[in-house]
């Protein structure tokens, strides 16, 4: 099929997209200019791409080729390895409408990324463990380039060639923050796919998603590609106080890739991408635990998250006769700004703006033997450095000054002087918080495998060093007076500055024994996982608030019992230690029923020490921090089955965890025996798709698909008093395919299930974030 022969169809498609966009253009008031500019840019790209008149791809022939990626550290087929894994190829991802890491929740057993907050949130839970802030439990590599900032984990997928999620600790090969697993994402390369790919989508909440990309293989030695996407939503949740949707959002991105294969043995790939996000989010509503009533979202200060991230990666490979030498060089820049109403009430307590700039450099060298040998080995050296410059002022507003500062102080004063008050002149004042956090690390690692008969024994180890420091400079200036004695306001400055350092030297071993069957394998593995320690920058506003109270009282010569004291009153007390785990796993990968049924299962035991938990200080605190719990233990299992027979595809995935504290005492209570919060105990996904071939004059085929996901139960707190029961999400799609066109009608959460995705406390109040309601839409895809 040539482009020329489809000129009319292409024109029709572009016009259709334009009409769709114009349908909501008049209705959408927010960010209209950006949206129109983005769409204009997109279609300008489309025009250029079209004029290039590339040869279109016969995608059906490329299906298997595209999905086969040769990772630099793993085997091409994860199912021949002693590891639990989920692999999704380009067409799986597009058919299942997977647009982000979040959409893989439950599709990969015991993997869960809840949808709440903003794209900065990116909380991920695997096998009962997870992390709300700071260090993630999952390592993310995009085209073999490690993503060193969790804030970037939530991004829009487009033209993703393959997603491979390896569950269980992967620290030996991938290092820090892979205690729960590693997700390897590979983008589409012009060397395996050539053509133009277009799609446009319109759905509930005036949501649109448009994408255009172009892949050109100039010669056997050189290819290039360019792609862009744009997405918008008006949002699903109304902020009653502000009378506007709070979770609106705009996203855009560009990716340019060049592939140069000067010889058959040498390849150099350059992947550059830019991402832009500007969104609301934070649809948090207050929960009254006396009446069990969840109130609507209602807060007075706007919430917003903006991010620009740039990634540049160079992947060079040399293929020798018996080895493969790879080099992955990466630079990542992130500039993001979160602005939130931190009390999430209609009162003016306090807001926080967190603005950070991060530069990150990484280099990985990997020398690996070729597959299929009796001895297989891998050796690598990794280094990284990143520099974060962050300022995060917390602004205390009128109600916050009255209730969080003066109420406490005057409460004691009034018992002696009923008619006198401490007053603060400012209606609002900022607690300035500035941090500089440089981190660097280096590691040496290796792995050896030996085939003996049907057995494969594999051992590996990594020596990983990481060093980090935090320079902090926090200050606040207020003017105060005591009405009984001070006719005028007096300036009071509180300063808290200093530097903290952390360093870790870790040994991360693993071992496994795999027995090859005629139709698969059975394996046992043991591996150590490691999550780096760090600094609690989010508790500094609490510390400074406490110090300011002490200063004020000291300046007044008043000593109130307990006022101004806090559990965390020094910077050194706010650091947290690394988390360690040992994962013992028995599993199997099988092909059954004439290779129609692909069955994977595993059972695992994880013992975790120093588990990192997000905790809230007692009382009306404004911050949160990572703390190390004592010990925890997880027992669980995973089953994945994929059945393909003729035009029917059925997939079922189930994961279960029993994750409990073994030792954890926060100073007030012991939580031994309680379930770990936030991670679901069960994840279920089942999906089925059936293709019907029709008369080719009108429609080539119809593809009907449906999917069911069930997630829960999730406990929200350490004492297990609040929980989310198992919730069910039903989705379905119907695709009409003709030649290069695919028109899909789809729906998500078809039963409009009510459920919560997140819980937290702020200044003593309880909040939940609801899951998105029923959604429906239409998608047009064109692959030329």
């Amino acid at each position, binding site marked *: 099929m040539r482009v020329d022969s489809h000129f009319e169809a292409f024109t029709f498609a572009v016009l259709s997209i334009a009409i769709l966009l114009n349908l909501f253009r008049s209705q959408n008031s927010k960010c209209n200019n950006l949206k129109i500019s983005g769409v204009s840019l997109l279609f300008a790209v489309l025009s250029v791409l079209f004029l290039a008149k590339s040869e279109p791809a016969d995608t059906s022939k490329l299906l298997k080729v595209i999905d086969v990626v040769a990772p630099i550290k793993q085997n091409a087929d994860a199912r021949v390895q002693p590891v639990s894994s989920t692999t999704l190829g380009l067409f799986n991802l597009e058919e299942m409408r997977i647009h982000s890491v979040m959409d893989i929740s439950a599709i990969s057993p015991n993997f869960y990324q809840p949808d709440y907050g903003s794209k900065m949130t990116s909380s991920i839970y695997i096998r009962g463990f997870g992390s709300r802030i700071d260090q993630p439990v999952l390592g993310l590599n995009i085209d073999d380039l490690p993503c060193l900032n969790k804030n970037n984990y939530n991004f829009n997928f487009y033209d993703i060639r393959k997603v491979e999620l390896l569950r269980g600790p992967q620290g030996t090969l991938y290092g820090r923050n892979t205690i729960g697993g590693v997700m390897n994402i590979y983008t589409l390369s012009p060397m395996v796919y050539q053509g133009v790919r277009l799609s446009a989508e319109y759905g509930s909440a005036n949501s649109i998603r448009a994408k255009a990309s172009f892949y050109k293989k100039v010669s056997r030695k050189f290819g290039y590609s360019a792609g862009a996407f744009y997405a918008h939503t008006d949002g699903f949740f109304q902020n009653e106080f502000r009378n506007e949707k709070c979770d609106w959002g705009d996203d855009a991105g560009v990716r340019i890739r060049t592939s140069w294969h000067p010889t058959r043995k040498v390849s150099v790939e350059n992947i550059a991408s830019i991402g832009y996000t500007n969104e609301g989010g934070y649809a948090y509503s207050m929960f009254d635990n006396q009446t069990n009533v969840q109130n609507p979202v209602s807060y007075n200060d706007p919430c917003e998250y903006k991010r620009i991230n740039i990634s540049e990666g160079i992947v060079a490979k040399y293929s020798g006769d018996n080895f493969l030498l790879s080099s992955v060089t990466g630079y990542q820049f992130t500039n993001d700004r979160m602005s939130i109403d931190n009390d999430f009430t209609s009162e003016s307590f306090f807001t926080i703006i967190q603005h950070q700039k991060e530069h990150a450099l990484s280099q990985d060298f990997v020398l690996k033997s070729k597959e299929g040998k009796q001895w297989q080995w891998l050796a690598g050296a990794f280094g990284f450095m990143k520099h974060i410059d962050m300022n995060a002022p917390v602004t205390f507003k009128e109600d916050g000054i009255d209730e969080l500062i003066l109420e406490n102080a005057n409460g*004691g*004063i009034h018992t002696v002087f009923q008619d006198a008050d401490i007053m603060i002149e400012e209606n609002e004042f900022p607690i300035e918080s500035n941090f500089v956090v440089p981190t660097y690390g280096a590691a040496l690692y290796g792995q050896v495998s030996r085939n003996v008969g049907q057995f494969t024994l594999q051992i590996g180890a990594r020596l990983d060093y990481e060093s980090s420091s935090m320079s902090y400079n926090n200050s606040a200036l207020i003017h105060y007076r005591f009405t*009984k*004695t*001070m*006719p005028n306001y007096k300036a009071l400055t509180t300063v808290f500055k200093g530097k903290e350092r952390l360093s870790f030297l870790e040994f991360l071993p693993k071992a496994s024994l795999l027995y090859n069957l005629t139709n698969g394998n059975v394996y046992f593995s043991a591996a150590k996982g490691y999550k780096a320690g760090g600094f609690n920058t989010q508790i500094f506003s609490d510390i400074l608030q406490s110090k300011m109270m002490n200063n004020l009282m000291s300046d007044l*010569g008043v*000593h*109130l*019992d307990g006022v101004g004291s806090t559990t965390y009153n020094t910077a050194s007390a706010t650091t947290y230690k690394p988390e360690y785990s040992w994962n013992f796993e028995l599993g199997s990968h099988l092909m059954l029923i004439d290779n129609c049924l692909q069955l994977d299962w595993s059972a695992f035991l994880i013992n975790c020490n120093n588990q990192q938990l997000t905790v809230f200080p007692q009382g009306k605190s404004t911050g949160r921090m990572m703390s190390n719990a004592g010990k925890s233990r997880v027992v669980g299992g995973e089953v994945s089955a994929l059945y393909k027979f003729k035009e029917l595809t059925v997939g079922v995935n189930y994961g279960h965890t029993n994750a409990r504290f073994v030792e954890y005492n926060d100073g007030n209570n012991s939580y031994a025996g309680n379930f770990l919060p936030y991670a679901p105990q069960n994840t279920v996904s089942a999906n089925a798709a059936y293709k019907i071939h029709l008369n080719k004059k009108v429609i080539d085929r119809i593809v009907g698909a449906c999917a069911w996901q069930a997630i829960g139960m999730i406990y929200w707190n350490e004492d297990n008093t609040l929980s989310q029961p198992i919730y069910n999400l039903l989705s379905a799609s119907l695709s009409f395919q003709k030649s290069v066109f695919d028109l899909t009608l789809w729906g998500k959460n078809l039963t409009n299930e009510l459920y919560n995705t997140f819980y937290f406390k702020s200044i003593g109040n309880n909040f939940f974030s609801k899951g998105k309601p029923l959604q429906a839409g239409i998608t047009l895809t064109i692959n030329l």
Partner: protein
Amino acid sequence: MKIVLLTALVVAAFVSCEKDEDQKEAVVEVVSETYVGSLSVNQNDGTFFTLDSVSVEVNPTDGDSTLNMIMRGVKFSSRMPVSLDMTVNGIAYTSTTTNVSLSGNNIIPIAMGGEFPDYTITNYVGTITDGVLSFSMVCGKYPLTFTSTK
């Protein structure tokens, strides 16, 4: 001979003067000092509120024979949830060879950033003897006494 006699007289005169100055330095010198002791407050209801380990700083002022007294973290009643730093300025003192006598009347104390006329100090009488500070006064309507430990 006259010169020798004159010199002897001059030396005798100086010696005489040195003896007078030695006698002046023998009085107790008032220096900045912190005294820790027990405070007892008459509650005017037949009971007394006693607070131990109260710190009292004494600082002489330059140029006159007065001193300032800062009482750190004091409470005057068991019902007071807060403790205060209270400053009493302008306490007159006279030194003898054995002790320092303190006195004052109608002094408005300083606390919580300013003056507290409700707790005007009257009938302040005290001594510093052998490193022990003791005084009594009426703070507002509450008589109180303080005696430091040595």
